């Protein structure tokens, strides 16, 4: 039945497309409308998953610390807690500090959410379920994922608070130390698959997942992922216990909700990317591709949360040292070995 429904929808889509391509005006309108439909779908996907993820993180952290986690709002196990928090955040007063650089302060939450949305463009959720299968997907990914740091800088500077500025500068200092090893680690996968398109990378893993042939590359990617996500042990830009909340400290209400949403949307996006690059993406037996994709992504998210609630935060100099002295050489060695292997076979 679902296959029939898919074929039916495909038929309707093809008919409308054929009809619209008769005139340039309707063709342009069709492209615009189809784009809007895609954006709405991705937005809905993000919001629903973020609601689940925030709840999951709180429950998981509770269980790690032998607590129960949220239990009151919604039975069983406080499933409605995030929805209640969301409604509370929407009702909060929107405060802009008097000394703030108003333009930067207002734009920053929008920029961070846009940067996160950009990553979803190349996330393959199924053989055809991809917003746009760019032929430079991985390159685009590296560019879009690091875009969030610009927003962190904008928010930190625009708030004109010393804590937020310190957090933002830390975020900028971190970027150079993790972004280079991350891209180099991903290059190993690119060399093996011989393509930059994310969907083609997934297809090339039908026999063997790349985590099995690129374990060092995966560990480097995982370490850099934590810095990219601003999560413990590399959450120096936020650093709740020293910088109170880092770059987003002056934000309240809806604007803060945007930062919060972007943080978890980023977690989901980068976990999906990790699954795409190293765990065979949507490929898997018996179950539909989308189910496999979600299962793997949530498994990876659990791994990320597990590490997050295990490790303490490192210092800035420790992170820079780790990035330059450990991650970068490891990624380079991995890339060299992979290159030689590809050259010989």
């Amino acid at each position: 039945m679902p296959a029939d429904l898919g074929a039916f929808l495909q038929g309707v889509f093809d008919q409308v497309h054929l009809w619209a391509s008769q005139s340039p005006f309707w063709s342009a309108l069709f492209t615009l409308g189809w784009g809007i439909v895609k954006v709405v779908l991705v937005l809905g996907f993000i919001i629903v998953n973020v609601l689940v993820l925030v709840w999951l993180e709180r429950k998981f952290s509770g269980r790690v610390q032998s607590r129960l986690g949220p239990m009151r709002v919604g039975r069983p196990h406080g499933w409605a807690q995030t929805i209640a928090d969301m409604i509370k955040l929407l009702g909060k007063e929107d405060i802009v500090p008097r000394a703030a650089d108003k333009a930067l302060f207002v734009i920053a939450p929008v920029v961070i959410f846009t940067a996160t949305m950009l990553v979803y463009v190349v996330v393959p959720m199924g053989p055809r379920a991809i917003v746009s299968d760019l032929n430079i997907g991985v390159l685009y990914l590296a560019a879009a994922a690091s875009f969030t740091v610009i927003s962190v800088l904008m928010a930190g500077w625009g708030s004109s608070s010393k804590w937020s500025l310190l957090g933002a500068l830390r975020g900028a200092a971190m970027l150079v130390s993790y972004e280079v090893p991350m891209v180099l680690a991903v290059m190993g996968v690119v060399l093996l698959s011989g393509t930059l398109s994310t969907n083609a990378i997934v297809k090339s893993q039908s026999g063997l997942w790349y985590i099995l042939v690129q374990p060092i590359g995966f560990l480097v990617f995982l370490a850099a992922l934590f810095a990219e996500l601003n999560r413990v042990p590399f959450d120096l830009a936020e650093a709740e216990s020293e910088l109170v909340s880092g770059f987003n400290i002056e934000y309240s209400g809806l604007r803060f909700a945007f930062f919060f949403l972007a943080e978890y949307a980023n977690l989901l996006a980068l976990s999906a990317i990790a699954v795409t690059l190293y765990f065979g993406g949507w490929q898997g037996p018996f179950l539909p591709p989308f189910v496999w994709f979600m299962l793997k992504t949530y498994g990876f998210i659990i791994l990320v949360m597990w590490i997050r609630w295990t490790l303490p935060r490192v210092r800035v100099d420790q992170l820079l040292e780790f990035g330059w002295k450990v991650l970068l050489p490891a990624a380079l060695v991995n890339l060299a070995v992979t290159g030689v292997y590809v050259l010989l076979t």
Partner: protein
Amino acid sequence: MHNLTSLLTGFWSFICGLWVTLVNTVRPPVTFQYPEKYYVPLEGFRGYPALVVDPETGETKCNGCQACARACPLGVIHIETAQREDKKRYPVEWRLEFGRCMVCNLCVEACPFGALTMSPEYEFAEYRPEDLVYTLGNLKLPPEGFEVRRLDGSTVRTGLAGGGRG
């Protein structure tokens, strides 16, 4: 070489840390939903100083010697005594200003007759400060345990040697 070994030990301790959190994640939580479940304190828990009732006579063991009142660093214990026909003294009033009491246990240690003990209660919230002055009527603690009045009106049975979750 040194860097490599420190890297490997660091990675090994990272795995150990993951194991610790995994063990704690899969074991049942130690906390519970408090108002629905009631924690019965372990023996030795200090609630408030309460008068022990002698199981043979049904009266308090107190003879009003004032040792506890003298031992109290804050002076929150007030005792008035009277004499029975057999010349024994008994308290007609035994007042504890619990709002000022710091639950130091010195009165219990000072009592030569073992007439005082620490109650196993912990829900003391009241709407008026006067209600925190406990008198003879609500200070008696029967040996077989007693009903603790919960804030929501329900009751829980507790004794001196309780323990664990209720």
